[in-house]
């Protein structure tokens, strides 16, 4: 270090090494904790997004431009099966499935209920949705088996039907014709999502197109990315492929499920409060350390002013000392956070009872931290800024000091 001021700042830190280490320790602890907590939080959001979207809506959907706002039978895509096949081929991605949606009145021998009936491609639907994996009784739909239906557990209970029972349904077709069919219940799913379990049923897409006079049409192509982080690039690729086709609209998951984004934002806001409390505590620790340090060295600062140092330069010295201390806390804190994250990325994080919930709802048994630049740097950057802000008061005290008063200080 050629710079005497820098050397002086560094050595000043270690004049009271216990006090400095306590403050740096608080920074290391908070930086490590913030990195771990934020990474885990972002990881849990990824899981939450994946689980919510995989249950039904997928990460992206191709729809008729008006279908999202007005989900009517007539806003359909032509030749939806061929379009799905083309996208699977060109994107080299299997997790793309065609669907057609309709509403019908379903009747068993005893009761009738309204339901949302979805025509799905049984070969590809399990690749975009976790619903097929949630069939707790019977089995899921199989390709080439028309006249079968899987329904939610609550709907089955309401209709008083079980496996092998027949349901008749009537609805309105694409051309406003009368759509009716008789299907056999082959599977009953339990998603844990009340709306799905109460009112959703799935049948084979070809069968649906036949009964509802769709003539090869469908209402959506549901796309599931390998990972939620890949959604934007996948969206861009599909957009490039279908650039000129104005009859298609590509919907991002936050358009399909706006409530999900809002619930994540609400969770982030409540967690941010805790983070801010932690950062403020660290900032007070820095304020205490630097204020003590300045008060103890007032005479020394007076000498420096007598020698000709501008008050602003003395303030900068205090900020430099804080900066060095912060940098130490930052580097070591990021190191600690990184080690914890690397470990957690290997073993995952779980809490008591999580495995039972996971098993019941076909969810992962563990949460894994999400390594992003944001999760690794946001917390430490906030601690660093908080610490530097906390040092402004001692620095300001020095700025306002006169040499004679400083040199008279005890």
């Amino acid at each position, binding site marked *: 270090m050629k710079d005497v*001021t820098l050397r002086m700042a560094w050595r000043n830190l270690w*004049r009271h090494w216990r006090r400095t280490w306590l403050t740096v320790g608080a920074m290391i602890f908070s930086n490590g904790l913030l990195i771990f907590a934020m990474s885990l939080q972002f990881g849990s959001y990824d899981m939450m997004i994946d689980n919510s979207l995989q249950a039904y809506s997928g990460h992206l959907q191709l729809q008729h431009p008006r279908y999202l706002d007005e989900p009517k039978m007539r806003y359909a895509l032509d030749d939806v099966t061929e379009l799905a096949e083309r996208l699977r081929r060109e994107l080299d991605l299997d997790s793309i499935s065609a669907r057609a949606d309709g509403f019908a009145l379903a009747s068993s021998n005893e009761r009738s209920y309204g339901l949302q009936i979805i025509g799905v491609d049984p070969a590809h639907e399990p690749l975009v949705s976790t619903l097929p994996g949630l069939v707790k009784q019977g089995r899921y739909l199989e390709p080439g088996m028309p006249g079968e239906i899987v329904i939610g557990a609550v709907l089955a209970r309401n209709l008083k039907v079980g496996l092998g029972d027949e349901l008749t349904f009537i609805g309105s077709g694409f051309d406003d014709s009368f759509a009716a069919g008789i299907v056999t219940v082959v599977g009953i799913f339990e998603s844990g999502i009340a709306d799905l379990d109460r009112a959703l049923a799935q049948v084979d897409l070809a069968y649906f197109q036949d009964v509802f006079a769709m003539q090869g049409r469908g209402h959506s192509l549901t796309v599931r990315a390998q990972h939620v982080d890949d959604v934007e690039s996948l969206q861009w690729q599909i957009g490039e492929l279908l650039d000129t086709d104005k009859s298609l609209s590509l919907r991002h998951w936050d358009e399909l499920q706006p409530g999900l984004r809002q619930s994540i934002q609400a969770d982030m806001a409540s967690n941010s409060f805790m983070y801010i409390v932690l950062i403020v505590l660290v900032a007070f620790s820095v304020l205490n350390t630097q204020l003590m340090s300045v008060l103890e060295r007032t005479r020394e600062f007076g000498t420096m002013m007598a020698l*000709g*140092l501008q008050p602003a330069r003395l303030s900068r010295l205090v900020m430099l000392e804080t900066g060095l201390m912060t940098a130490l806390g930052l580097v070591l804190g990021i190191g600690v956070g990184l080690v914890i994250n690397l470990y957690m990325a290997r073993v995952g994080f779980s809490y008591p009872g999580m495995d039972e919930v996971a098993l019941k709802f076909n969810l992962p048994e563990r949460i894994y931290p999400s390594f992003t630049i944001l999760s690794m740097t946001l917390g430490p950057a906030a601690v660093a800024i908080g610490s530097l802000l906390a040092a402004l008061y001692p620095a300001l005290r020095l700025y306002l000091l006169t*040499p*004679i008063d400083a040199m008279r200080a005890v």
Partner: protein
Amino acid sequence: MSAIRCRQLCKTFKQGDEIITGLDHIDLDIETGEFVCLSGPSGSGKTTLLNAIGGLDTPDSGEIHMGDIRVDKLERGPLADMRLHHIGFVFQAYNLIPVLSAQENVEFVMEVQGVPVAERARKALDILKEVGLEGMEDRRPAQLSGGQQQRVAVARAIVSHPDLVLADEPTANLDSVSAAHLMGLFQELNENHRITFIISTHDKRVMSYAKRLIKMRDGKIIGDEAQ
């Protein structure tokens, strides 16, 4: 620069309800290269006068001129610049920066002045040699005796060849041998570098080195004679 001119300098302090007179209408002229001692009992106003001349404290009234500069009218920034470039201070308690070595203490002022790294290192080593501290450059103040610390303080004060050195009771914490060495050093620097020295003291031995002795009492100059 360096000729000091004080006119009708007044300074009072408040101590509880009592007003204490620090300087009482001081008129004083000091020429370049003079070696002046301010003597007088405690509370006579020696330190107050040094602080006012050095721009560490502001007088209540009166004028202080240092060459063409009206010191008492300067703002904080220019005042600090004036101290940095034109005045060297030596304090009774040495006032070295404890975390810096002898060489770094001397270099520090030059760094603030913007002297290049190599030049300030060379100058610091030269001046430490001149004040008799060769081989002790890397020692921290706590590893030096009182006399050695005061030598470092002197080296720090004169390394940039200031026009004026203000020394406030510089020998008060030194034994007689160290005090004699220090005063000899001051005398040598005064003669060799034509630096103006103003030294406050109530030590008769120190006064014997002065070419001009100013006696103070109750904030007034009561005697001013060449020796």
